[in-house]
């Protein structure tokens, strides 16, 4: 359905803009950049929701890899703490990807939004 071989300059520029912006977000905030990539793939490149989330994850492998390498140079990366949250997250992502294929995940998204707002309040009040 999608023209993978479309290499028009405009498309290339959009990918470059998304990649740069996602990288900036990732490095600045310690996130993957998916909250930038997914909506922009949908809006600018006409992706469907599921292809956008899947392609975003693949791009994040590189983005987080680069950003981790640079943070490593600053000496900020704690390997053990990363394992402590990262290993259970591997189980989580298996659950998340398979849920995504088969169910309406609206209530989970809303719950997640509530958790984010609560975390934001807690961070600021700290």
């Amino acid at each position, binding site marked *: 359905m999608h023209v993978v071989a479309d290499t028009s300059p405009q498309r290339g520029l959009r990918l470059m803009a998304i990649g740069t912006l*996602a990288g900036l977000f990732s*490095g600045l905030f310690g996130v993957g950049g998916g909250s930038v990539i997914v909506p922009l793939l949908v809006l600018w490149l006409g992706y469907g929701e599921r292809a956008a989330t899947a392609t975003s994850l693949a791009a994040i492998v590189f983005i987080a890899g680069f950003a981790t390498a640079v943070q490593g140079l600053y000496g900020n990366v704690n390997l053990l703490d990363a394992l402590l949250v990262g290993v259970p997250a591997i189980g989580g992502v*298996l659950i998340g990807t398979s849920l995504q294929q088969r169910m309406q995940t609206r209530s989970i998204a809303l719950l997640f939004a509530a958790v984010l707002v609560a975390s934001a309040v807690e961070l600021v009040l700290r």
Partner: protein
Amino acid sequence: MIGAIVIGLAAGVVAGLLGVGGGVLFVPGLVFFLGLDQHHAEATSLLAIIPVAIVGTYRQDRYGNVRRHDALLLGLLSVAGAAGGVTLANALSGAFLRDAFAGLLVIVAAQLVRRTLRRAPARPGEGAGAGL
């Protein structure tokens, strides 16, 4: 410690569902449960994201959802932004970075609610996950 494990699991679930790295939960989890400061939490979150994104990509690729060419381009084109972002983060104070991160969380939450409410009822046929 239990809190860190639970938030790690939750971060993985949202990573798989939403196509994000899970950092929006890793960072607060590392701050609240493991006592890291904002800079260390962000850096450590980035490392934790890598295996999550690898496993999520592998699964999504088997479902045929990954556009490999675009993903590779996006990833490779992000390198300057990522380096700039990390450098900027390390130039900023922890307090400022923490407040900015809190702002990011609120924006992501608002975006998520908007997308969910807009898409979910509109496309029943497209079904699973399209609500996100």
